[in-house]
C-alpha cells in the first residue's frame, strides 16, 4: 500500500455519516468546556458540571474518556471523601 491512501479511495464511494460528524462536534465542545473548567485548578465532577453548565453525567462520561486517553488525571478524594478531584495532565512535549 505505502503511499496510496486507501481512505481517499473509500471516500469516493462512502460519505462520512452525519451522525459521526455531529457526535464529534458535540464531544469536542464538551471537552473544551471541561478543559476550560479544569484550567481553574483541581475540581470534582459536580464542580465542573456547575461551572460548565453540563449535566453531571455528561461530565462523568466525557471527563472519564479524557482520563482514559491521558488528558486528565485524578489527584485523590476531596475533604469529605465523597468526590475525586481531577486536574489536567500536562501535555507531553
Amino acid at each position: 500500500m505505502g503511499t496510496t491512501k486507501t481512505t481517499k479511495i473509500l471516500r469516493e464511494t462512502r460519505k462520512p455519516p452525519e451522525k459521526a460528524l455531529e457526535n464529534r462536534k458535540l464531544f469536542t465542545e464538551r471537552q473544551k468546556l471541561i478543559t476550560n473548567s479544569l484550567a481553574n485548578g483541581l475540581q470534582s465532577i459536580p464542580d465542573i458540571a456547575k461551572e460548565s453548565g453540563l449535566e453531571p453525567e455528561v461530565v462523568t462520561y466525557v471527563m472519564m474518556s479524557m482520563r482514559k486517553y491521558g488528558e486528565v488525571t485524578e489527584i485523590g478524594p476531596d475533604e469529605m471523601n465523597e468526590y475525586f478531584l481531577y486536574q489536567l495532565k500536562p501535555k507531553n512535549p
Partner: protein
Amino acid sequence: MKKIVEQNQAGMDESLIDYDVLVIGGGIAGDEAALKLADVGYKILIVEKDLSIGGRMILLSKVFPTLDCSACITTPKVSETARHRNISIFTKTEVKSITRRQDNFFDITILKRTRYVLETLCTGCKECEDVCPILIPDEYQYNQVARKAVFIPFSIAQPRIANIDIDNCILCGLCEKKCPSDAIDFTLVDTYEHLVVKSVVLATGFRLFNPTVLSRYGYGRYKNVMTAMEMERQLAPTRPYNSVLRPKDGKMPDNIAYLLCVGSRDQTVGNPICSQICCMYSTKQAQLLLGALPMADVTVYYLHVRAFGKGFCEFYNQALSMGVNYIKAKVASVREKENGNLILRYEDFSTGQVEEQEHDLVVLATGILANAEIESVFKGEKLELDPYEFVRQKDMLTNPAITSISGVFAAGTVTGPMDIPDTILSAGAAAAEATAYLKKLS
C-alpha cells in the same frame, strides 16, 4: 487464505474437508471444547462474531467463589486456544448458513466482516487509536466511557488487533497515515466464504436481560441505576473510571443496593426461569465493593440466595460475615431524589409492611436470556429450541451434549443458564461427544 469448495460435490472425499469441527462462539465454552478436541488431534475452526475471543468471562472482574481474577483464568485459556496448532480462529465473523450434505458433512457459509486492518500486519501498538479524533461510547466498557473509532477492544483482547468502526468513522485518514506497519486498508471488504466441516459445536452463549423493559426500576432514566455487568467493568482491573463511581456525578458510592431477579423468574417479561448466576455474582461484587470502598454499605435485596454450587454456601457466609446486608424482598420500584440518590420501595418480610430505603447507587442483577439467532442458520434441518429459546437438549439425562441435529453439539449456556465451572464441564462433554461422533464417522 481459504480455498473455496464447490458446493454440490457428493461422496466421502476427505480432501474436501476444511476442518473437522466448526465451533461457533469463542467464549470460554467454545475455547474449552476446541482445546479438548484439538488435543485429540482434530482440526478446529472457531468462528467468533465479536472482535475478541474470551466471551463474557474475559470482561469480568473476578470469579466466585474463589475470587480468582477472571482474566487470570481466561487469558491463559484464550492464548492456549489462539496458539494451538490445530485451532484456527476467525473473529468478527458470522456463520450465515449450515447445510447438511449427502455425505453427512456440513456446508458452511461464513461472513467475514472486515476490520479495515490487515490482521497479519497489525502489531497492536495503538498508535492509530491515539490519533483518531472520534470518541463514542465504548461497548466493551458498557458505554461508561468513550473509545475511538479505530480501537483495540480491550488490553487483553485476543487477537490484539485494531478494528475500525466504519459507522462512526469520518474517514479522516489520520490512522492510516500514522500506522507504522501500514496495516490499515480502507479498501478491504466483507467476504463470504464456504467451508466444509464434519461436525459443529454450538457455543454461542447468552444475552443479558435489558432492564429498560422494567420501567419501574428506572434504568436508563436514572443514571445511578446500573446493571451488574456495568459494575463488573467498574470493578475490573481495566476499569473505565479511577475507582468505583456513580455514573451520574462521579461520587464514591457509600450505600449500594443490589436488586436480584431482574428479568429472571419473572413471567411478566416472559422469563420464568432462574438465571443461576446472579445471586453469586452479586455476592461476589458485594465483597469486592467492600474491598474497594471500605466505608461503604452494601445491601442485597434477594428472594432466595441460590448458593448451590461447590463452595458457594461458604462464599455467601463469608459475605455475611464481612457485613454485606441481605434483605429478603423484591424491590417494587425505584424513585430518584434530587441529589441522585434512589428510594427503593419493598415489603419488609419481618413485619409484612411496606418499607422505603434510600441508597446512592442501585445495581440491577440482570438475568440471562437465550441467544436464539443460531436457530435460523441451519438450513434444511430444524434446530429445536426449548420454550425459552435455549437449544433443546435432546437427551438431557443420558447425553446432555446432543441437540436435535446429528453431528451438532451444544456447549455451555447455549442450552440454559450456567455458571463458569458448569459451562466448562459441559464444553468438555460436548468435546467428548463430538470426538465420539467423528470417530464413528471415519
